[in-house]
């Protein structure tokens, strides 16, 4: 059954691909802003126009009623008025008319409020639709374009440049109609009172209508220039950040800054010219607008004096003339915006255009429908006469590889072998040649089907900013059900939104098996050890962890582990922990990520203040700030202070700055600095004997103040969910100065977990870790890539220069079991690594390659 993609559901759903009659090309410069708005929001625009039409009669009534009040209710004499069956005296008649006027004004404004909200909502949806369209374009960019583009520039174009379009697009059809309608009503009213007054009112309109667009044309040019320069500056900033290392090593920071100043100055010059033009137009408009009333008052006054016009009519006409200024100004502004935003829209959409876009159906079409869909399974055919543009020279005579075969790629440059791997995985398309799986060319295969069939592991697999489990499941997206995209919270929901807890457990078990086979378990356990347990996990694991802690502490007492752990003791300072932790001797809020979060807790702040600990922290903070100031001054441009553990360069600058303005109010700021001081990490100052004694006294006082259910002090015998699992097991922190021996502790802890049968349970906790990317080695990332590839049961597994010889030898049989029947193509580092293959593709230095059967022993699948 054809899947229900979210953007196919209605006009305002995300929007680009799949929209009937208007696919991705709607936003790539092929259509005007107006057409884009109409196609994407015609229902809303018609609704807005209908609502506008309701306001017109009410507006006319707000002009007619005051005239009737003055001429009839006030000036028409005291006699009774017959309104249907009712007879009203003069005052009642006046009150009825005033009430009617009030109702008209109220209703008109309520409708205007609803109209504006509707326009705003429509604009927001259109902006979202435009951005989704651009994002879809990016996803369809050819590989060469993706290599060329800088992510920062794309972000700027996608988010920053189109932002102002939102408000305009919502009302692009309704605004001119509504404002012109109002203008016609006001003008019609004035003409109805007096033709001469009507002519006087609109006398300057033709001149303005001719002059303003003329002046606006130059503004449009300047706006384009500004956008171009802003983009150049964004590219420059991206390049500066990317090349910061080279810049520093070459001492070019000053030059870079000066270049940046030049670019910003150039933008400033364009903005100045823009401002001059804009305000000139505004000035011209104001003068012309003021000319109308001058003629109007003179002519209107003469008509009243001459008896050709009633005073009530003149008052109403004066009001109408005043009201006309609003819509007329709005119309002129609209004309300016049409030019301005139209050029922005064209500029932005053209920048996402590309003649070589990957076909929409191929990227977004479902895996199980359409001409490109269908499973890819069967023999792999590789024939390359000319490699993809930009790749190293490569040519391979036609070769066919049966399912279940293992193919080693030997020799050639990394580039040539990489090009072969990328072509086999469908990531690159050779200029001339054929790459097919099961008789289907990868070049034209639906990407979801390709993703389901082919597993590719590169040297640096992408790590998403999600949990580790979601990272491992990433490969299942192409095979899983799309689900309800609007309700997606996690990838797990996406994959199977209806799956119950049993399915989730089965999936986790599968992932843990794969992770174990790939050698990822130690990394999962290591990540889990850095986590805090939930209350439930703490309860669940308590007996096992207590037993484990006892045996680990015995191990840590052995000579090989001496000096590795700084233990938590009630009578001593833990140099590996912050001063705030030392004072509190607990982490009372497990949700608090750092010391600043703890200090923000009113309960903790109150306890610190009452016990005098805040003053102590402030003293330490001031001492540390003084030391920082000296170092900041010595550090010049601060390059040496980048990447400091626990402190950012900005923190040090702020600390030094605080010393310039010492006041009582800054005590908290100094306390915040002191709270973060870790003696073993920040060696510039140290606690002296008196400070140590004071800290221990304050610790005792704070312990009394904070002792309540749920707060676990560090030396208690329980399992403390507010500490990391690792710290809890060790009863302290690993010493930074003994970093060289940390592996020893990790091995001891992991070994003990294995012995106790807890390894898998702890690894499960590791699956839920976030923000782990930096804690992983390159090999661990590659293992994640391998698990991700194997989890989807690929028909072809491509290992592009990953894992060393020993690791590959360890994994090869397991991979065949984990992906039964799959073709495995891998880059072999040497002949020995290729001896277990069924076939070898040997690439010569010239790039010429040929496949032939391997000669070594081999193992069959299963």
């Amino acid at each position: 059954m054809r899947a229900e993609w979210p953007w196919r559901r209605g006009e305002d759903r995300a929007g680009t691909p799949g929209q009937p009659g208007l696919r991705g090309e709607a936003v790539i410069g092929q259509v005007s802003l107006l057409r884009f708005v109409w196609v994407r929001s015609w229902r809303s625009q018609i609704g807005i126009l209908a609502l506008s039409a309701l306001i017109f009669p009410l507006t006319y009534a707000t002009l007619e009623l005051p005239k009737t009040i003055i001429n009839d209710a006030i000036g028409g004499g005291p006699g009774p008025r017959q309104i249907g069956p009712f007879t009203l005296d003069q005052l009642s008649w006046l009150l009825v008319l005033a009430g009617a006027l009030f109702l008209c004004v109220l209703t008109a404004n309520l409708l205007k409020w609803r109209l504006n909200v509707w326009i705003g909502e429509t604009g927001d949806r259109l902006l979202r639709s435009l951005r989704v369209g651009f994002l879809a374009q990016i996803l369809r960019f050819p590989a060469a374009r993706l290599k060329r583009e800088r992510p920062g520039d794309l972000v700027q174009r996608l988010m920053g440049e189109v932002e102002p379009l939102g408000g305009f697009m919502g009302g692009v059809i309704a605004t001119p109609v509504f404002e012109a309608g109002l203008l016609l009503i006001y003008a019609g009213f004035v003409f109805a009172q007096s033709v001469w007054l009507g002519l006087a009112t609109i006398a300057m309109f033709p001149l303005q209508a001719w002059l303003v667009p003329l002046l606006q044309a130059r503004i449009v040019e300047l706006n384009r220039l500004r956008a171009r320069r802003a983009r150049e500056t964004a590219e420059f900033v991206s390049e500066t950040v990317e090349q910061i290392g080279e810049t520093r090593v070459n001492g070019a920071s000053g030059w870079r800054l000066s270049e940046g100043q030049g670019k910003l100055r150039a933008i400033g010059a364009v903005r100045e010219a823009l401002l001059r033009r804009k305000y000139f137009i505004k000035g011209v408009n104001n003068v012309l607008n003021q000319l109308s009333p001058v003629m109007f008052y003179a002519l209107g006054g003469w008509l009243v004096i001459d008896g050709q016009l009633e005073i009530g009519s003149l008052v109403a006409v004066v009001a109408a003339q005043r009201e006309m200024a609003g819509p007329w100004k709005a119309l002129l502004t609209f004309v300016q915006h049409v030019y301005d935003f139209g050029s922005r829209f064209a500029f932005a959409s053209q920048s996402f255009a590309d003649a070589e876009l990957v076909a929409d159906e191929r990227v977004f079409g479902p895996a199980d429908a359409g001409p490109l869909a269908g499973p890819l399974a069967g023999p792999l055919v590789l024939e390359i006469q000319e490699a993809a543009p930009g790749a190293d020279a490569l040519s391979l005579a036609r070769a066919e590889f049966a399912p279940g075969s293992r193919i080693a790629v030997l020799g050639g440059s990394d580039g040539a072998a990489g090009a072969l791997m990328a072509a086999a995985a469908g990531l690159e398309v050779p200029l001339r040649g054929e790459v097919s799986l099961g008789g289907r060319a990868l070049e034209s295969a639906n990407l979801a089907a390709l993703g389901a069939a082919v597993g590719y592991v590169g040297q640096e697999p992408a790590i998403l900013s999600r949990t580790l489990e979601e990272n491992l499941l990433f490969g299942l997206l192409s095979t899983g059900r799309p689900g309800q995209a609007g309700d997606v919270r996690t990838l797990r929901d996406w994959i199977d939104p209806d799956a119950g807890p049993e399915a989730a457990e089965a999936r986790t078990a599968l992932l843990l098996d794969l992770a174990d086979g790939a050698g990822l378990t130690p990394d999962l356990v290591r990540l889990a050890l850095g986590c805090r347990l939930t209350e439930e996990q703490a309860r669940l694991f308590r007996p096992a962890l207590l037993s484990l802690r006892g045996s680990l502490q015995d191990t840590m007492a052995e000579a090989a582990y001496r000096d590795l752990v700084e233990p938590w003791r009630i009578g001593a300072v833990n140099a590996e922990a912050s001063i705030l932790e030392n004072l509190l001797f607990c982490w009372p809020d497990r949700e608090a990520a750092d010391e600043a979060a703890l200090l923000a807790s009113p309960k903790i702040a109150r306890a610190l203040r009452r016990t005098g600990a805040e003053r102590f922290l402030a003293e330490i903070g001031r001492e540390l700030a003084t030391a920082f100031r000296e170092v900041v001054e010595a550090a010049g441009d601060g390059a040496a202070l980048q990447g400091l553990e626990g402190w950012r360069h900005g923190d040090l600058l702020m600390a030094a700055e605080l010393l310039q303005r010492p006041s009582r109010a800054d005590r908290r700021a100094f306390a915040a600095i002191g709270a973060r001081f870790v003696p073993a990490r920040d060696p510039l100052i140290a606690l002296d004997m008196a400070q140590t004694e004071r800290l221990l006294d304050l610790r005792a006082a704070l312990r009394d103040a904070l002792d309540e259910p749920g707060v676990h002090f560090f030396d208690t015998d329980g399992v403390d969910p507010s500490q990391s699992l690792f710290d809890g097991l060790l009863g302290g922190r690993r010493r930074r100065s003994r970093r060289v021996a940390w592996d020893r502790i990790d091995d001891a802890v992991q070994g003990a977990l294995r012995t106790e049968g807890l390894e898998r349970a702890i690894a499960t906790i590791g699956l839920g870790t976030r923000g782990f990317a930096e804690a992983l080695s390159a090999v661990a990332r590659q293992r994640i890539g391998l698990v991700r590839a194997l989890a989807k049961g690929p028909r072809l597994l491509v290992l592009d220069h990953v894992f060393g010889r020993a690791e590959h030898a360890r994994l090869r049989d397991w991979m065949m079991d984990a992906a039964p029947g799959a073709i495995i193509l891998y880059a072999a580092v040497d002949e020995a690594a290729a001896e277990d293959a069924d076939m070898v593709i040997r690439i010569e230095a010239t790039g010429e390659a040929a496949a032939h059967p391997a000669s070594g022993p081999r193992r069959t699948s299963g």
Partner: protein
Amino acid sequence: MMSIAETLEGLRDCAIFRSVDAAALKLAVLTGEQLRYYGDEVLFRQDEPGDSVFILLAGRVEVVRQDEDAGEERLIVHLARGDLVGELSLLCNAPRNATVRALEPVTALRIPRQTFLSLLSDRPEIALALCNLLAMRLRRTTEQF
């Protein structure tokens, strides 16, 4: 762990930091990492990427190199307090050309590559002293052959 005064004193014993003011030394201490090793523990191994330099603040180390032909380690030199270790691979952007192993309890300040290069570019006196040190070593090596 050594106090800041002891650490600064140890740095002053290193030729490249001898004429540097206290603020720059404190910068090195803050951005560096004081590490402690026991006998037989390795500061770094031959062929590892060189991402930092070490200044020995206390204790002795041996510098050994794997002799490919003999298949065993060859002692190159013993180093002690005040010596700089690991600067060559950092400056040449090449893997470590020897293994450095503690012979007894050793305390060393490890300065990462970026910080060390910044110190060299900001403090010409350190760069000059390093040139001097490397020239002396080259001269000694030349005299041996």
